[in-house]
C-alpha cells in the first residue's frame, strides 16, 4: 500500500515551484554563496530603485544591511537584471576606514564571473570605480556583479578601523533606454491596431483580456520611462460604448496629449500601484502593523524613500472623524540622520502630516507622531510614507542604511456612522456613467437623493434605479442615466426615460456633476485605486544561488485564499495575481499572469482560461524584468515556503491538467475505500 501511495505523496508535495529550499530574510544565501568570501553578515537582496536618467535608467545595487567588507578577503554579489542585452555602465562606490592600508588593498570587480577591473582602494570618501560592461557580457535576464575587496591594514592585525564598505549611493548600473518592443503591442480590437479598450457589460470579457494585455505592456513601459515614450490614450477614436482606451501608438502619429490622456495614464499607474499593494481591511479602533501591509524591512538608502500602503475602511467610516494615526518607526544599527530629514504622510494624494525625523536613532528605536485623519475615507485609501533628506545619501546615513521595520504600526481611530457618495463621470460615447462608490446595497435612497440634487438644473427628474442592484454586493454600482446607444438599450427600458429627454438632461447632468465635484465636499472624484481588491500576488523567483539570488514562491496575501485559475509557473520567473471579484462572490479570478521568459505565452493563457476583470476594468501585474518584485508588487522579498503556497501551486497545476486531478481523486478515493473496507469489522454486532 505504501508503495502505491508514496509516489503520489511525492507528486502532491513536490511542486514545480523552483528549488525546494526554505528561504528567509537575513539567512545565508546558500552553499555556493558561502564559498565566496561573504562577510559574516549574509547578503540578501533587498531593493533596487529604477530611476529615469538621461538616456536610460539607473538601477541601484544594494543589500539589506551595510555592505561592509569586514575580513581580509571578502566579496559581495549583487545581481541585476535587464530585459535586452545592451552595454551597461557599472559604478561601484567604496568607503574605507582610516586604518586601511589602501596601497596594499585592492578592489576586484567581476561581471558574470569575468574580471573587469582590479584597482587599489582609494581613501577618498566618494571613491568609485566606473566600468562600461560590454554587451557580450550582459545576459538577457539575471547578471551578477561580484565585488571582491582584499584589505590590508597598517597594523599587523585587523582593527576596528580597518574596514571597507560599498557606498550605495555610487553603486549602480546605468542601463541604456529600452526600445518599445513592437511585439508587445497587439491589436486590441478590430480596427484599432496598437490599441485596446474595455467595455462594461456583457462584452467585457474579450475586451478585458485585451486591456489586461495592453496595460501590462504599458505598465512595463511606464516603469521604465515614465510616459516619456508616448504612452497615452485618446478619446478621439474611442468606440461609443467603450469606457477606457489605451494605446501605445507613437506620438508622431498625430494624436495630441490631452488632459484626458494624462488622466488615463495616471489611472493606469494608480491601478498598477494599488494592485501590487496589499489591501488591508480596517474594521474599527485597531492598530495594524506595517507587516500587515507587506512591509517587512524596507531599506532606505535614497534621499527620498516612498512607501505606499493601502487600507480599506468600512463604509461606515465617518470622514469628519477626528481620529489620528500613529506611526512607530524603528531604526536599525547606529544612524546619523541629517537634521533636516523629514517624514511626510500623504493620504489619498493629500499631504496629511509632516514632521522632522529625530536625528539620532538607536537600534529599533521608536518614534511616534500624530496624523490627522480627515483625509481618510470609506473604501480604499492610499497612504504614502515619504521620508526625505536633503543632500547626498551619505548625509542621510553614513553609518549604514535606514530601515523601516514591519513591526511599525498604524493606529486607526474608531469610526462613526457616515455615508459618502463619489461620482465619477466616465464619458465615452453618449453614455454617462455615474458610479456609486458605496458598499452598502441597495442604496437606492442615496442615489435618489443625489439625483434630486442633480435634477435641480434639469427639467425632468428621472426615475432612478440601480443598474447593477443589490446582487452586486460590495461592488461599485453603475448607474446609467441615459443612453440610446446600442448595448445599453436594456438600461434605457429599465429607466423608462424617453431618449429625447435623456439626451437633454444628459448634458445638463454632465455640467452639474462637474459643478458638484468642485463644490460639494461629499462628492469627489472616483478613486480608481479600488479596482482590485482582496488580491493575492505571487511571484515565483528562481535565481540560482550561485548568483546570490533567492528561490521560491513569493506571496503577498490579503485575506482568505480564493484560488487560482490557469496559471503557468513553468517559467523561471513568473508573476501572477489571484483576486476575488466581489461581485462574483467567490469566483476564482486570475487577473494576470506574466512569464518573463515567454512573454508571448501570456495571450494564450489569458485567452484560454477565460479571465475577467473587476467590474469590467483592468487590473494587472506589472511585468518586471527584475528579480526583486517587492518594490512593485508590495511583496516581501522572501517568504518561508509554506504548505499554503504548495497547495496553491498544486492547485494551479491541476486546474490546468484536469485529468491528473481526476486521477488523483479516483486513486485516493479508491485507496481510502479499500482501507476503510479493511478496517471495518466483518460484523460489528
Amino acid at each position, binding site marked *: *500500500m*505504501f508503495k502505491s*501511495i508514496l509516489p*503520489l*505523496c511525492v507528486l*502532491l508535495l513536490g511542486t514545480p515551484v523552483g528549488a525546494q529550499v526554505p528561504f528567509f530574510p537575513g539567512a545565508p544565501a546558500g552553499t555556493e554563496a558561502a564559498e565566496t568570501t561573504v562577510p559574516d553578515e549574509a547578503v540578501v537582496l533587498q531593493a533596487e530603485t529604477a530611476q529615469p536618467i538621461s538616456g536610460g535608467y539607473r538601477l541601484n545595487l544594494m543589500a539589506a544591511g551595510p555592505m561592509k567588507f569586514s575580513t581580509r578577503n571578502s566579496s559581495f554579489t549583487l545581481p541585476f537584471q535587464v530585459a535586452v542585452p545592451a552595454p551597461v555602465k557599472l559604478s561601484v562606490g567604496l568607503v574605507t576606514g582610516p586604518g586601511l592600508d589602501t596601497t596594499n588593498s585592492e578592489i576586484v570587480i567581476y561581471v558574470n564571473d569575468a574580471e573587469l577591473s582590479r584597482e587599489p582602494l582609494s581613501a577618498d570618501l566618494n571613491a568609485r570605480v566606473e566600468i562600461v560592461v560590454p554587451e557580450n557580457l550582459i545576459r538577457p535576464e539575471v547578471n551578477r556583479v561580484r565585488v571582491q575587496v582584499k584589505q590590508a591594514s597598517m597594523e599587523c592585525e585587523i582593527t576596528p578601523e580597518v574596514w571597507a564598505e560599498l557606498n550605495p549611493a555610487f553603486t549602480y548600473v546605468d542601463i541604456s533606454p529600452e526600445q518599445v518592443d513592437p511585439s508587445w503591442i497587439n491589436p486590441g480590437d478590430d480596427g484599432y491596431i496598437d490599441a485596446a479598450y474595455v467595455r462594461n*457589460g*456583457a462584452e467585457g470579457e474579450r475586451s478585458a483580456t485585451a486591456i489586461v494585455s495592453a496595460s501590462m505592456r504599458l505598465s512595463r513601459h511606464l516603469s521604465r520611462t515614465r510616459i516619456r515614450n508616448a504612452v497615452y490614450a485618446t478619446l478621439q477614436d474611442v468606440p461609443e460604448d467603450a469606457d477606457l482606451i489605451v494605446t501605445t501608438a507613437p506620438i508622431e502619429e498625430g494624436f495630441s496629449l490631452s488632459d484626458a490622456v494624462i488622466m488615463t495614464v495616471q489611472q493606469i499607474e494608480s491601478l498598477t500601484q494599488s494592485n501590487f499593494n496589499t489591501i488591508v481591511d480596517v474594521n474599527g479602533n485597531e492598530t495594524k502593523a506595517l507587516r500587515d501591509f507587506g512591509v517587512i524591512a524596507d531599506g532606505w538608502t535614497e534621499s527620498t524613500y516612498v512607501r505606499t500602503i493601502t487600507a480599506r475602511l*468600512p463604509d461606515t467610516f465617518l470622514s469628519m472623524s477626528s481620529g489620528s494615526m500613529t506611526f512607530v518607526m524603528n531604526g536599525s544599527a547606529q544612524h546619523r540622520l541629517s537634521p533636516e530629514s523629514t517624514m511626510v504622510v500623504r493620504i489619498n494624494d493629500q499631504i496629511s502630516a509632516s514632521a522632522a525625523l529625530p536625528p539620532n536613532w538607536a537600534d529599533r528605536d521608536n518614534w511616534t507622531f500624530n496624523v490627522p485623519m480627515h483625509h481618510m475615507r470609506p473604501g480604499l485609501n492610499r497612504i504614502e510614507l515619504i521620508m526625505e533628506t536633503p543632500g547626498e545619501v551619505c548625509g542621510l546615513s553614513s553609518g549604514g542604511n535606514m530601515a523601516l521595520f514591519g513591526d511599525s504600526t498604524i493606529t486607526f481611530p474608531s469610526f462613526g456612522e457616515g455615508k459618502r457618495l463619489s461620482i465619477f463621470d466616465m464619458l465615452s460615447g453618449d453614455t454617462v456613467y455615474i458610479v456609486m462608490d458605496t458598499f*452598502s*446595497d*441597495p442604496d437606492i435612497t442615496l442615489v435618489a437623493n443625489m439625483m434630486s440634487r442633480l435634477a435641480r438644473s434639469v427639467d425632468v427628474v428621472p426615475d432612478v434605479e440601480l*443598474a*447593477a*442592484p*443589490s*446582487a452586486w*454586493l460590495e461592488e461599485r454600482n453603475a448607474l446609467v442615466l441615459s443612453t440610446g446607444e446600442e448595448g445599453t438599450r*436594456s438600461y434605457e427600458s*429599465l429607466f423608462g426615460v424617453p431618449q429625447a429627454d435623456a439626451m437633454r438632461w444628459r448634458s445638463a447632468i454632465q455640467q452639474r456633476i462637474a459643478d458638484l465635484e468642485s463644490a460639494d465636499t461629499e462628492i469627489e472624484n472616483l478613486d480608481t485605486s479600488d479596482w482590485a481588491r482582496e488580491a493575492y500576488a505571487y511571484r515565483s523567483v528562481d535565481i540560482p544561488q550561485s548568483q546570490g539570488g533567492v528561490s521560491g514562491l513569493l506571496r503577498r496575501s490579503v485575506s*482568505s485564499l*480564493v*484560488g*487560482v485559475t*490557469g496559471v503557468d509557473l513553468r517559467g523561471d520567473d513568473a508573476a501572477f495575481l489571484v483576486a476575488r471579484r466581489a461581485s*462574483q*462572490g*467567490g*469566483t*476564482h479570478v486570475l487577473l494576470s499572469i506574466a512569464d518573463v521568459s515567454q512573454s508571448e505565452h501570456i495571450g494564450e493563457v489569458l485567452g484560454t*482560461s477565460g479571465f475577467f476583470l473587476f467590474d469590467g476594468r483592468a487590473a494587472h501585474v506589472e511585468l518586471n524584468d527584475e528579480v526583486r518584485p517587492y518594490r512593485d508588487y508590495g511583496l516581501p522579498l522572501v517568504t518561508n515556503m509554506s504548505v499554503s503556497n504548495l*497547495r*496553491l501551486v*498544486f*492547485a494551479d497545476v*491541476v*486546474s*490546468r491538467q*484536469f*485529468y491528473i*486531478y*481526476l486521477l*488523483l*481523486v*479516483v486513486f*485516493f*478515493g*479508491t*485507496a*481510502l*475505500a*479499500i*482501507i*476503510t*473496507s*479493511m*478496517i*471495518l469489522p466483518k460484523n*460489528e*454486532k
Partner: protein
Amino acid sequence: MYIVKFIIWLITAAIFIALLTIPLSSQAQITMSIGCIALVGAMKAARPSGVMRTVAMALTSAVIIRYVFWRTTQTLPPMSDPVSAVPGYFLYGAEMYSVLMLVLSMFVMARIKTESPTPHIDPATAPTVDVFIPSYNEPAEMLAKTIMAAKRMEYPEGKVTIWLLDDGGTDQKCNAENDESAAEARARRELLTFMAEDLGVRYLTRERNVSAKAGNLNNGLHQSTGDLIVVFDADHAPSPKFLLKTVGFFAQDDRLAIVQTPHFFINPDPIERNLDLVGKVPSESEMFYGKIQRGLDYRGGTFFCGSAAVIRRTALMEVDGFSGRSITEDCESTVGLHAKGWKTHYVGEVMIAGLQPETYASFITQRSRWAQGMIQILLLNRPFMKRGLRFSQRMSYLSSIMFWFFPFSRLMFLIAPVFYLVFDLKIFTASGEDFLAYTLSYVGANLVLQNLLYGDVRRPWMSEIYEFAQSVHLGRAVLSILMRPTKATFKVTSKDEIANEHKISDIGGVYYWVFFALLAMQVWAFYRMYTEPHNVNLLIAVSMWNVLNLLLAGIALGAVNEKPSTPPAIEVRRPGVLTASSGEVREVRILSADDHGVTFSTPQGDPLNAEGETMRLEVRDVHRGTGEEILACDLLFCNRTDGVVTARYVSSKEALALGCSLLYDSPNKWRPYDLNTKSRGVIMGTVDFVILSAKQTVRGLNGLAVARKM
C-alpha cells in the same frame, strides 16, 4: 495490526481531504465531478457490493466534499450584511443538514447485514410467548382479523398466549364524564371481551390511560408471564411462520433483547395512491425496512418499531418495561436496552401485513407523531450522549432521529430562491457559472449516491417528493415539539378511515398557495432575465432551483388530491372447492382475496345463477399442522365478469379464518411491486419525475377547478 491500518487510513483520508480542498478552476471542478459521477454511474450498473460499493461512495463523497468546502469558504454572505446573512446562513445550515444526513446514511449503509439462517426451535424447550395486540379505537373487525392471524401462527402447542390489550375500554373511559363517550367505551369493552372469549384469547384493559401505548403494553407485561413478548399493532396481521422465523434467535444469544421484522402495508399510502404510483415504484417503507434496518443491524442499531417484533421479557424488565416518556415508545425503549448492553437483531423477511393511513390528513398525523416522538428521544434521551451506547449505535440513532428535521431544510430550500428573485438578496454569493459547476455536480452526486445506496427500493426523486409533500405540516409539528418537548400527545393513527371520493384534502390547500407563489416567482424571474441581461446567468441558476421547487410543488398538488381507495386485494392463486346452493360442486381457482371476499374462476363451469345466491367455499389450509385441515365458509355471489366471480364472505368465525389464510399465509404475494425489477437510474428517474410532475400538476389544477365549481 489494526492500529497500523487505522494510521494508514488516517493518512489516506487526510491526503484525500487535502486533495479535495484544493481550489480549482470551474472547468477542473466540472471535469472532476463529471468524471467521478460517471465512474460511479458505471459501477452502479454493475450493482457493486463490498469494496466496490465503498469505492463508489468515496468517489461521490469527493464531489460532495468539494461542494461543502466551496460552499463554506466561498459562498457565505458577509456578516456585515445581516439582511442577507441571516437567511444565507439558514440556507447554509439546511444544506449542511442534508450533507450530514448523507454522511450518516453512508455510515449506516457502508455495509448491510446479510440474513442469518433461521435457527431451529426445539418444541420441548421453546420459550413461552405472550402476543400483545394493543388497541385504542380500532374496529372490532380489524382486531378480530389480527387476532385470528395471530392465532394461526405456527408454534409449539400451548406456548403462546394472545392478549388483546384494550385502551379504548379502560375504567377511565367507561366512567368518562361525557355520557356518550362512556357508553361507547362500555359497549366497546363488552364487545371486545366477548370477541376475545369467542376467539380464545385474553382480553385485558386497565384503570387509566396512562402513558398511552407504552402504558398499555406495560400493563400487559405485568399481567403476563411469557418468556418473550410479541407486539402486533391492531392492524398488523402476522403470517403463520412469524414465530418460527424469529424466536429461535433468542436461544442463540442470551443478550439478544429484540428481533424486529419489517412492516409491510397491504394498502398503499395516500401519496402513493394519489400519485398513481401503486405497483410502479417501491413503497415508501421499503427503503427503511428493506435497506436501512439492515444497515442499522450491521451497526448493532436496529430498533423496535412498535410492532412485528419479539422482545425478551427479562430485558424489558431490566429497563422497567416499555418507555413512555416520548410518544414513540418503541425506539425509546430500544435506546434503553442498547444502553444496558442488550442486543437487537433484524430479520428482513416480511411477515406481517398492516394498513397505511387512508387519507393524506391521517398520513400527516401519523408522520407528525413519528417526527415528534423521535425528536423527543433526541431531546429527552439524548442517545448521542447516553452512557452505555457504542459509537456506531449513537450514529445509528442520530441517523434515524435527525432525518425528522427534514421539514426545515426542505422549507428552506423552498423559500431560498425567493430571497434573490424577489428581494434581490444575495444569500448564496456565487456566480451563475460556479453555482452550476458546484451545485449541479453536488445534486448529481447526491442523486447518484442515493441511487447507489437505495436504488432498488427507492426511485430517484421519490424521497424529495415525499419530504416536500409533508414538509409544510411536519414543519409545524417539529417546531412545536422543539419548543415544548414534553407536551406531545399520542395521536392514534386512524385505521378505519376510507377515502371514498375525489377531493382536495382538508389540509392540502397550502400546497396550492405554494405552487402559485412559486409560479409567480418564476414569471418574475423571466421578467428580470429580460430586463437585467447582466444578471442573466445568476438568474438562470436561481430559476433552475425555483423550477425544481415548482416541479415538486406540482407533484404535491397531486398528492393532496385524494383519490378513492379500493380495498387492498391480494393475489392468491390457490385451489378451492365450491358448493353452490343448487348442490353442484366445482373446483375453483381463487384468484384474489380482500377483507370482504374473494374472486375466483371456475374452470369446470359456473353453477351460480343469481346475485345474492349463497355458496360454500372450501380451501385446504397448507400451513397448519399436517396440512390436511380444510377451511370453509359461506359466500354470497356478487357478480360475474369475464368468467371471474366475485363473492363476499358471510360473516362468521369460519370466514375470518379462511380470509386470514388467504390473505396472510403467503407473504411473498403481498408486494404489488416486484423488487427484483431493474431499478431506475438517475437520468431516467429524473425524466419520470418531470413527467410525473406534469401529470400531477394538471391533475391538481383540475381538482381545484372541480372543487371551485362545487
